């Protein structure tokens, strides 16, 4: 009797527990499996969209990739006064391997690359008509990120032997699960450049001339021109810049053109006619670290972490419209000068306002790249260097055209004025072999270290010299 009762109680409990099983088969309502994410044409295109979102991270083109070259390459032109030590270390060329920006940018870039690899691996599932564009965009993302990594985390292409110097690991396979985890070693600088050129060249072929705010033929060619320029392949740079200009200014490419006003480029929510590629930011979504750190609190930024020094203003001719300045504005002051003074320091207006897009490639850069490459090669592909440079000077306002170009340094100077704070400082200084804050252009401290956590997680990685 007693035993039977116990058995009764136990069997009741067992029935109850099996009855509950269904409630335990829970799904994460906010997540898809990787199989689902890459299952259909529609989903893969959404993953591509996610790839751009990853690209827009503050660690990448949401601002940091543009800020690092100007902070590290400041050469007395700008001053990090903010409280964040991680940026201060970039500016001071005193990076620790544990710096969170060093690891953040590294992992964010490889996140974009992995998304691109996932799209490329599943490209067959995309509607045939769109396969070229989608693959082209994925290759653009992968190529651009490998390029950004190699020029930050490795010696410059022209420093020593590129085929012997360590670059960054090239990732072309998709990590779908823990089974795919690899511990790749660093490829050489040469290998990385080769892969980047291959990816971007194919992307340029596959991409359409116009593609709303996403990667276009011109955008791929523009990054390609930067790649060639960095490796001092001026013919490649010239031709890529020229192709960019041709494609972008064509009606199929959206008839891009230099804006009449220099300042009309900046603090824009939508892409302008001069933007070849920009990261989209609005009040709903997106990060603009340029605004956060270059602007000041009255415009919704931090307290003005980056001050512009007199050494930078000295680059301009006094009448240059790109040097104009407003003194001590308040939040309600309407002004559109290139600089303003606030809290007793000069600030750039380029990134003044909240929720505006982040510049990545402007058409103006392509004219200057074409000019420089043509000048170095003694050619006039597309147009003469003088015409290209004067085009930029004329638009700046307040300047007379040059009558002749007597040195490539004149074009470099124009580049520093036109593209100031837009992410060229360190990279161009290395190309022109300039001394930066007393350090030679190929100083070890002008190269980012491999992040401490990566060295820890991957024993095949070798640390850069000087760290």
């Amino acid at each position, binding site marked *: 009797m007693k035993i039977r009762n116990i058995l009764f109680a136990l069997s009741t409990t067992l029935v109850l527990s099996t009855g509950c099983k269904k409630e335990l088969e829970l799904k994460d309502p906010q997540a898809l499996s990787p199989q689902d994410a890459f299952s259909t044409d529609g989903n893969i295109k959404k993953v591509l*969209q*996610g790839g751009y*979102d990853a690209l827009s991270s503050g660690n990448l083109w949401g601002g940091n990739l543009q800020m690092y070259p100007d902070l590290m390459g400041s050469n007395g032109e700008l001053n990090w006064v903010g409280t964040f030590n991680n940026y201060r270390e970039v500016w001071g060329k005193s990076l620790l391997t544990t710096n969170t920006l060093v690891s953040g940018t590294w992992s964010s870039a490889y996140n974009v690359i992995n998304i691109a690899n996932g799209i490329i691996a599943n490209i067959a599932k995309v509607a045939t008509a769109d396969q070229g564009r989608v693959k082209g965009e994925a290759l653009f993302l992968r190529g651009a990120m490998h390029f950004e990594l190699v020029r930050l985390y490795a010696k410059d292409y022209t420093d020593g032997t590129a085929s012997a110097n360590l670059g960054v690991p090239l990732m072309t396979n998709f990590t779908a699960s823990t089974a795919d985890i690899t511990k790749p070693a660093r490829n050489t600088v040469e290998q990385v450049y080769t892969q980047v050129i291959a990816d971007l060249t194919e992307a340029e072929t596959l991409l359409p001339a116009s593609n709303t705010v996403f990667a276009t033929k011109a955008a791929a060619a523009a990054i390609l021109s930067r790649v060639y320029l960095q490796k001092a392949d001026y013919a490649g740079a010239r031709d890529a810049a020229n192709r960019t200009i041709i494609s972008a200014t064509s009606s199929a490419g959206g008839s891009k053109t230099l804006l009449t006003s220099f300042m009309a480029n900046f603090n824009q929510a939508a892409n302008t006619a001069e933007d070849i590629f920009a990261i989209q930011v609005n009040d709903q979504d997106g990060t603009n670290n340029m605004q956060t750190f270059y602007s000041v609190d009255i415009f919704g930024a931090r307290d003005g972490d980056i001050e512009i020094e007199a050494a930078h203003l000295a680059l301009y001719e006094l009448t240059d419209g790109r040097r104009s300045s407003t003194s001590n504005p308040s*939040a309600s002051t309407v002004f559109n000068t290139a600089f303003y003074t606030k809290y007793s320091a000069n600030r750039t207006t380029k990134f003044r306002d909240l929720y505006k897009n982040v510049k990545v490639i402007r058409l103006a850069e392509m004219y200057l790249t074409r000019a420089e490459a043509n000048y170095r090669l003694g050619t006039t592909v597309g147009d003469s260097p003088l015409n290209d440079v004067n085009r930029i000077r004329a638009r700046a306002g307040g300047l007379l055209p040059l009558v002749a170009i007597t040195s490539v340094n004149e074009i470099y100077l124009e580049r520093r004025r036109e593209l100031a704070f837009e992410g060229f400082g360190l990279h161009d200084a290395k190309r022109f072999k300039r001394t930066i804050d007393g350090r030679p252009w190929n100083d070890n401290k002008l190269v980012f270290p491999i992040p401490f*956590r990566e060295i820890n997680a991957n024993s095949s990685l070798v640390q850069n010299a000087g760290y």
Partner: protein
Amino acid sequence: MRKNHVLLMGCTLFAVSVVAQNRQVTGRITDSRTGAPVSGATIRVQGSNTAVVTANDGSFSISAGANARTLVISSVGYTDQQVSITSGSMNVQLVSSERSLDEVVVVGYGVKNRREVTGSVGKVSAADIADRPLASIDQALQGTVAGVQVTQNSGTPGGGISVRVRGSSSISASNQPLYVVDGVPMITGDFSQLGYGGQSVNSITDLNPSDIESLEVLKDASAAAIYGSRAANGVVLITTKRGKAQKTRINVNVYQGFQNAWRKPDYLDREEFLTIMKEALVNDGYFTGSETRNDLIDWWYSSSTLTAAQRGPFLFDNSINTDWVDEVFRTAAIKNYEMNVSGGDAKTKYYLGGGYFDQEGIVIGSRFRRWSGRLNLDHAVSEKLNFGTSISLSRSMNNRIVSDNTLYGPFANSLAAQPLWPVRFNGAYTRPNFFYSNPVAEGTENDDLAENLRGFGNVFATYKITSGLSVTGRAGFDVYNLNERRYTPNTYPGNSAAGTNGSATSGKSINTRVFYELTGNYKFTAGDHKFDILAGTNTETNKSDVTSVTGIGFPGEKFRFVTDAATVNTGSNVENSNAITSALARVYYSFKNKYLLDVNFRADYSSRFAPGERWGYFPGASFAWRIKEENFMKNAGAISDLKLRAGFGLLGNQAFGNFSYLTAYGGSNYNDQAGIAPVQLGNKDLTWEKTEQSNIGLDLGLFDRITLTADVYYKKTRDLLFIRPIPAQNGFGSYASNIGNVENRGLELALNTVNFKGTGGGLKWTTDFNISFNKNKVVSLFEGRDIFYGFGGNSIVLREGQPIGTFYGLLFDGVFSELKDVPAGRQAAGIMAGDANYRDLNGDGVITDDDRTIIGNAQPKFTGGITNTLSWRGLDLNVFAMFSYGNKIWNAAGTYQEGLFGGFNDDNQRTTVLARWQKPGDITMVPRATTDVSVNRNNEANTTRFIEDGSFLRIKNVVLGYTLPKSTLQKIGVSNVRIYAQAQNLFTFTKYKGFDPEVNFAGASNTTLGTDFYTFPQMRQITFGLNVGF
């Protein structure tokens, strides 16, 4: 003869009426300690079925047969007593069964007498906490239960606290114990979506402490194994008060009081501040020393970031000398009103309680209020079937302030604000430090409100199939709704909504737990063999629905809700769920009450793991030998109890992400278009953290006056949840896995003594003392590698062989008195006299990060408490002290508060900097004032300069009470009146120089411990209370 009795007692209420053959026995039952009447006690005439229950005033009257000799008196919470029937009114004092062998101890799924317990179980009963102004019941465990270390972390009203049962066993999953209220696991943790610095919202505060009958802590694995996969951090069983079969009792309890800071470290005044500022500029060569005060102010503040208008004329006004800490501190009120009604008859019993608790924080802008109600019902349908409920509803309103690591906290900013600024100038707030906003504005102008509504309870039914066999079904729920709102106006300089013109956020979090359970219980005795068998199953599902929306751009500060925002720019809504189902069983066997064996088993199936890894099995067993029952001990009269206990068990911890096992892709939008992007890499092998614990204990009683409980334990946790790093080249930086071991070993002693028995209303004095020694050690980590974390990212290290909470940094050996004292290598690097002398551990001649080492740890060597309770006639005095010894506190804020203008940081300074180095020959531990930070690392945070001894002894609580004598009460017609005065944190003895030694800027964090960084300090509370029973 009988007539005489009547005459003798004529003046009392307890007249004895005369019934033929029988006599009427009358009397009154009181508590031996307090003298308070004991109502509801059962009086039975031995050898008969006659029984009565005492009235509210403790009186009884029972008819006894002529031959009856003895009355048996019993009442819950008291030791049964047999007394001879005497003539006249009998006054019987019942002795509380607490701490005696008859003490009832709640164990998982049942109750036991203390003598039957085989595991390690600590208890706090209602009487222990009766007069303490506790906001939250978990505070009651502080210093009262051996082996339980409770850290308050801050003085934030309604804030979360850390409870560690036998040390920290996890590094990534939770270390907080499981709270089970009347059989249902409670939702615990912080569900706030808004950042307020380190201090969290504590969802346990929704329980009104005065509704609690007892708290039991299941400390060892054998006791806790019945709670399986969630018991690794111990289990706290909370039992609420229930009605008794007695006449209705109404109890009203009111207290009210005030609170203020018990200590305020000194900060520089205007004169001192400017003197040191100037000294720094002279040291650095900016000034020659001949400049005037106005030159100094002009130089410093015009070269910074202020316009002339912002600077105002006041900076030059020497009469302004603001003490900002005083501006944000206040004398804060605390009050509590509550009433409960309980009673019932043999069939139906009830407890109905309601309360209002209101505590202001000692920092402006903070306040916690709670309204709570509870209804506990028991109804017997028949001899066999019982129903019951245990239901509470509560609401709380928490006005929060940002603290700890922030630029926007009233308290934090008050420590940085300079004395040169008035609070307001021409009606407008000033900005008394460029990096921080006005502290008073932060505490006054913002809305920061967290409101919650919580329903928590269960219904249960027990059916007795036979006398020993019963089945209980229980269904419970916990619905926790948290509504939060924040509004930051753009009305004072430096506010966080500058640039967005006002910002408002509304967050809602609805957390629902549904629990059902069926247990069968079978008890039987066969000769000397006694069995108590339990088997059961339960299922718990949890769902959370979290919504948040933010708007910016407001037409004015009168408009404070998102609907008036120009732009609604962030919105989210997330749903999440998890579930667990379990089967459990226990066999308790006792042979001759001498050998006791308790075997537990629980199997848990959790949705948090991949199919295939979901089942976890958690066995536990304990054995006790009651040596006192052996024949050879019968004559050892001095020894009233002697019991040896031993137990072993395996427990789990699954307090981590709901879907960590899944590789997940989530929403990722760009350019206002929907996208998908990877979120995490899953791990199909993810499983429970497992804690093995063995325990050996001894219970010793001497002369019925002294009890000693000693336990030693060894606790080893393996398969720690660890976010394993992988090369980020794979697109992911890490995935959740099970790696590493942590161990805790310790000794706990609890000694309770009755120093004076207090018979007949004389002096009674008892002492309860407990002390716990726990040694925590990280045994193994992923690839044996150190993990750096903590404030600043590298101040605390997890290292094999070291405890959790190990501080890391440079060793500070004082300040170089003269240049010749500076080693050549460091002179070459630019170190001067007056700079910090750090130890060059690697001997390379310079100080680099390679010279960092372990510089202390936050784990105490021992903690404990001592309670002395004295009563004499109507007076009672309770003094409770707690202590912690050997723990270090890292005053991380020192880098700013004692930074001596390094890096042009002009935060106000602690007066410790008055002892700074000023000229060669000065011997001091405080470096020179200098703005230069390029090489000297003078004020670096992670150094022993800022590591302090955090040991303390704190008179946590003192209560002095007076119970009005019965004669007075009769006149006013109430059964019980007690008045008392109470003081919390009356005295604190510590070497720590900050605001409070019970501190952690990271709140109830698992692994970031003992760090002081602008943390809201604790207060001293004085309250006065009145307790009236009808």
